[in-house]
Every structure is written in C-alpha cells, then in structure tokens.
C-alpha cells in the first residue's frame, strides 16, 4: 500500500464559508426574499390593522408577531431550503466533503438564524415607524429569548426536514405544527381570549412559551418563575426534535425514513406532552379569563353604567383612602411604594391581572386594619396612575368592577410586609372592587374628592 499525504481539513473555516454562501444564495432567491421578509411585513401590517385597542399599538402583540416570524423561518423556510437542496442532489455533493454532518448543518442553521434575525429586526423597525411600537424594554433579555425560541423552532425544523421526502411534504408537516399554534396555541389568537380548553391545549405547544418569552422583553420587569418554565419547555421540545432530526438526517433524496419516522414523531410529541402535563400539574395552564383585548373594547356606555352611590367614605371603616400626598411619603409607606414597582405579583404582563393584584394589596391592608391602610391605598392608586394612562386605567378598572369574579387575586402579600391574616378571597375581591370604584370615580370625574 502506498502512503498518501492527507490534506489538512479546515472544518470551521469551511462552515463559515458555508454560512456566507447560504446567506448570499438566499439573498439571490426571489422566493426566499418573499417568504423571509415580505410575508413577515404583511403579518406586521395585519396585526397593526387588527389590534388597535391599546397605546402604544402592538406593544402587547409583539411576542405573537415575532413568534410567527421565527416559526415561519425555522419550520418552513429552513426545512424547505434543506429538502429542496437534498432533492436536487446538493447535499449528495456536500457529503463528499471531509467533514461530519453537524459541521455542514452548523453553517445552514447559523445562516437561518441570521435570516430570521434580520426579518425580526425589520419588523421591529417597521413597527416603530408605522405604529409607534416601542422597542423591547429589556433588550438583553429579548435577545436571549429570541435565541432560545429560534433554537427550539430550528430543532423542529430539522425534524421536519428529516421526515419530509419532498418540499410539498415540508409544507404539510410545517402546517401540522404551525396551524394548531396559530389557532389555539396563543400565537395567532391571543391566549387570553381563547376558551379554557384551548388555553390548556396551548400549554402543550411550544408557541405559547415562545410568545411568553418574547413578550417579556417588552415588559418593565421580568417574572423569573414563569420564564424559567418557558425556557425549560422550549429546551425540552427543541432538544428532543433536534436530536431526532440529526439522527434521521438524510443526505440523499432516495432514502426514506419509513416506520422510524412514526417513532420519531411519537418521541418528539412525547416531549410536548411532558411539557403540557407539567404545566397542568403546576397550575401554569390555568386559563387567563380577563383579557387585554376584552377590557380595551369596553365602551363608554358600559363604563357609564357603573354606580358609585354605594361607596363608603374615604375616612370610614372600610376602604379608607388617604388624600394625595402633599410631599413624598417616607418610612414604611415609601418602601412599600418602591416595592410595588417591582413586585412580581403585579408584573404578570396582563394589565387587568396586575391591577387586580395591586387592588388586592390595598384590600389586604384594609381588611387587616393595617396602621397605614389609607396611605397604602393611595400608594396603590398612585402606582396605577403611573403605570397606565387615563384611558387605559379607566377601562381596566371598569373591567374589574364589571367582572368581579374573573382572574386571580391575592389574599396575602408577606413580601410587602402585609402579614396580617389571610382573609377569604371573596372579601378581598369585594374590597378590591370598592377600591376600583373609588379610583375609577376619580378617573371619570364622578367622585370629586382628590
């Protein structure tokens, strides 16, 4: 046997060149440009046209919008390109390269990440220019969330590419993933306006967690508990799909996965089921009954039906309310006011829920006869006014008054040093509604006291 000099292989340099080549070829494809950029812009315009009940526009829907863009790029764009190349024989040629499949796949996935990232950036800029939607309040977290969501969906895309024999099959499999998430997964239709069964079903789908994470980037504070679960859910679903996708990857269009494909689908779905069951077992799939969309649609006529003649006075035994502070509060009240701004109980991202929980704080202090009960109620009112503009706060308070049994409330708030008792929920809800009326009356000029 003759000895032969083995050529030195440069896998990382090659993968980098593959990344650049994929980007260049993508930019030369009219079809890729339409699906990669024009369609996301159309979705942006569609969302901007439909969700018009809030200020600023789309601030609460960007999570959904970006999820759709990522889902489209990762579960349609990437596998379509991959399978089309495999069908043509491009990957058969790639296979002659002296590197393993993950090296080549790295270039493909990195290029898709860049393509999706640029589409998302385009949406953010256009949303700002066209609708005044602010950029994410937490850009670092938003970037991490984007990477996590894209990675999970690219994992699904890999599995779709492995299972699909041709491009039409990619479309069919992609729709099987896309449509349920759009319709009942909290991605296309906001989760809060879905029926309870659909909200439970959504907790089995990665779209829900993607929206949660991406929307968190737009909120002033983060909810670590929910975020951890959302990251974990996406990791479980994404890693399961990616592992199967890599194992079943085919270089040649002539090879088929056969029955192994069904087993792979079953294994991948078991990750979804595990996530959903955990969400249900831990109460994370509890339906959100109040909805931003619903409160935003309240009319002036509906708000005008609310009566204020049953309210106790501000200095009476129940629902006491201090007059506006003539100077900044100090001591415990000041600390509590500062605390409220970052209190996780009022940072769920749902304005109605957050408001109901803040009202609950005033109600707990009131029921517990806290020495600062009147001041605490005033602090809560000030916090609400600071958070929401007059129009939005009016509708939120009116919604809570008109739907006293909706959503959740708090009955204890030890982290705010409101330690006294754990009164029955119905009492807290009743007092919360009374405070809501006192605040709303001031908002709409039906109560003249300051």
């Amino acid at each position, binding site marked *: 046997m003759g000895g032969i*000099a083995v050529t030195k292989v440069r*896998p990382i340099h090659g993968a980098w060149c593959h990344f650049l080549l994929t980007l260049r*070829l993508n930019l030369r494809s009219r079809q890729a440009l339409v699906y990669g950029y024009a369609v996301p812009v159309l979705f942006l315009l569609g969302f901007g046209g439909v969700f018009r009940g809030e200020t600023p526009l789309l601030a609460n829907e960007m999570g959904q919008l970006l999820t759709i863009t990522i889902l489209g790029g990762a579960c349609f764009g990437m596998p379509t390109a991959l399978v089309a190349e495999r069908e043509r024989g491009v990957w058969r040629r790639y296979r002659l390269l002296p*590197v393993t499949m993950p090296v080549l796949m790295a270039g493909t996935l990195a290029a898709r990440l860049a393509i999706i990232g640029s589409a998302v950036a385009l949406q953010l800029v256009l949303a700002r220019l066209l609708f005044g939607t602010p950029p994410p309040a937490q850009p670092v977290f938003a970037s991490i969330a984007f990477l996590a969501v894209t990675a999970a969906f690219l994992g699904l895309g890999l599995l779709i590419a492995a299972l699909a024999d041709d491009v039409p099959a990619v479309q069919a499999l992609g729709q099987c993933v896309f449509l349920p998430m759009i319709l009942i997964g909290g991605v296309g239709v906001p989760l809060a306006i879905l029926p309870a069964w659909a909200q439970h079903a959504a907790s089995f789908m990665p779209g829900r967690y993607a929206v949660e994470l991406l929307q968190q980037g737009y909120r002033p504070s983060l909810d670590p508990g929910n975020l951890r679960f959302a990251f974990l859910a996406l990791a479980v679903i994404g890693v399961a799909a990616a592992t199967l996708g890599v194992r079943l990857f085919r270089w040649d269009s002539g090879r088929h996965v056969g029955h192994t494909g069904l087993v792979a689908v079953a294994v991948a779905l078991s990750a979804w089921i595990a996530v959903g069951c955990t969400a249900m077992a831990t109460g994370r799939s509890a339906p959100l009954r109040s909805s931003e969309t619903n409160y935003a649609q309240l009319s002036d006529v509906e708000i005008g039906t609310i009566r204020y003649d049953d309210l106790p006075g501000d200095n009476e035994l129940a629902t006491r309310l201090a007059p506006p502070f003539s100077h900044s509060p100090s001591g415990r009240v000041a600390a509590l006011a500062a605390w409220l701004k970052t209190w996780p109980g009022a940072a769920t991202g749902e304005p109605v829920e957050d408001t109901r929980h803040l009202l609950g704080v005033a109600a707990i202090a009131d029921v517990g006869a806290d020495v600062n009960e009147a001041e605490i109620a005033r602090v809560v009112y000030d916090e609400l006014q600071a958070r929401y503009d007059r129009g939005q706060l009016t509708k939120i308070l009116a919604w809570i008054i008109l739907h006293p049994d909706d959503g959740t409330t708090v009955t204890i708030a030890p982290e705010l040093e409101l330690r006294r008792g754990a009164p029955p929920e119905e009492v807290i809800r009743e007092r919360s509604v009374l405070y809501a009326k006192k605040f709303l009356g001031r908002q709409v000029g039906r109560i003249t006291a300051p």
Partner: protein
Amino acid sequence: MPDTPATVLVRDLVKSYGNVRALRGVDFEVRPAEIFGLLGRNGAGKTTTLECVLGLRRPDSGSIRIGDVDARAQPERAKAMVGAQLQGATLQDRITPRQALRFFASFHGTESRSSELIERFGITACADVAFTTLSGGQRQRLFLALAFVHDPAVVVLDEPTSGLDPQIRRELRSLIAERRATGVTVLLSTHDLSEAEQLCDRVGILHDGRLVVTGSPEELIRRSARTPRLRVETRDPLDLSAVARMPGVAHCGSEGGTTRVDASDLNHVIAALGEHLTATANVLIDLRIDRPSLEDAFVDLTGGQWEGSR
C-alpha cells in the same frame, strides 16, 4: 501535485439493499497513478462500489483502504485524500462555478487554486454565471474541477462523460488523462467501453455484484474467444468453399457482396487470400480487419450482451 504514491484497496466488499445483494464480495486494487475503470451493466454494482469507497454507503462487510487509511473506520480522513464526481450530485441554481470552487476548496484551505482550476478545466467563460445556466458539458467540467479542488491523490469519477457529445467526451478524457500524468490515481466507472479501452490502464468487469475479471483492456481482449474478422470485397464473388479450406480460416460466410472471414491465424489467411485472388484473376476492392474489442470480451466474460451495443 501529489508526490506520494496512492493506492485504493478494496477487499471482499458486500452490500445488500433489503433482499437484493448489490455486491457479493468485490475485490480490486487501484495502483498508483493508474486509471482503473469499473465496467458493468446497469445494476451491476458500479455506483454502489464507488459510493462505498467514497463513504457514502456503509458496506455490510469488507474493507476499503485508501493509502494507509481505513476508509470505513476514518471516512472523513479518507475523504480528505479523495476527490470525486458523482452521478446525481448537483449544485444550487444560483451558485456560480467560481463560488462553488471557492466554497468546496474552503474546507481544505485551497481557495487560491480556484482560478487555476477554472482555466485548466476550460470554464473561464462561464465562471461567474449561475449554475442553472450552464450547459451539460460546462457542468461536467465544473464537477471534474471540483473533484480536483484540493489536489487529491485519488479521484473517483462515476460515469464522467455520460450524456455528453463526442467532442466534449474527448476533451474530458484528455483532461482525466492529463491529471493521471501528474500522478493522480483515478478510479472511474463507465458505460462506454471504447472510452474504457482508450482511457483505462486496467479495467474490472462487474457482473451480478461480483468482479468477474480485472486486467488491462488488451489482456481482456486477448482472453476473448473471438477471432479477428476480415471483410473482403472483390470484383467477382469469392468461392466460399475454397476460402473455407484456406489455412487459418475458422469460419466464413457472405454478407451481400462482402465475404466475412473469421481468422484463427491472420497471417495465413491473408497470404492464402492473396494467392487465391491471383490464381483466379480476381480483383481486391476492399479489405477490412475487425479486431475483437472490449465489448466482445465483456460479452464473452459475462455471457450477455453489452447494453451499449443494443
């Protein structure tokens, strides 16, 4: 240019697809700087053999060594030594030949060779146009150039001139021969027996998943049972019974105005034929000698007809 001898050694290669046994123990060796051709009908196992050598298919058993590397145990290392052109492999529609060469070279750090390859393989005029606009010949030149992009010691070519017009086939053959002259070892499969005869130093005939014979085209032809055939055209028809009695004549017959003579000894037949023509005052108009070809050898060795001759 590789300066170390290169050899491919394949031993007892077995590969099945379900119940179909594609390869039933294939053995061959490609010597340094030679062109070795695998011949066989469709389904004989040529492409499967090449794909196993290239690491594209996992054989059920057997061994493949390229140089000192066990290609089954270290496929990536083996691929680094081999350049290849495959049937059914293609490129993206919008990639240009220059980009393709630079991309594939990037895994070996040999991007700087792309311009030289573009010139050597005659694709300068189309180096910067989209792949989809290239003609069949230009594409095949590009694929050949891609096979040489990292200056490999061994090149595997699957039907490199298939479907091309005669002029381009000739050009590609000379490109392959030119590369062999620089020390590259070439393993190729071909359907074209005349191409194999002209291009290959040695050939192996695959039949039903087995390599039934290997040797130089001349050796295989010599092994053929066929004899040279003379086609003799004369002014007056020849007397077949007289021809049949001539020394060195194995068989004779007539086709139209031409007499067909199968010669076991060509020298004796020609000499006797000359004497006979003189003696009978006949005039020779034309004489052609058809020597046995590789196709004849293939038919004899496999007991069947070559598809290309149908």
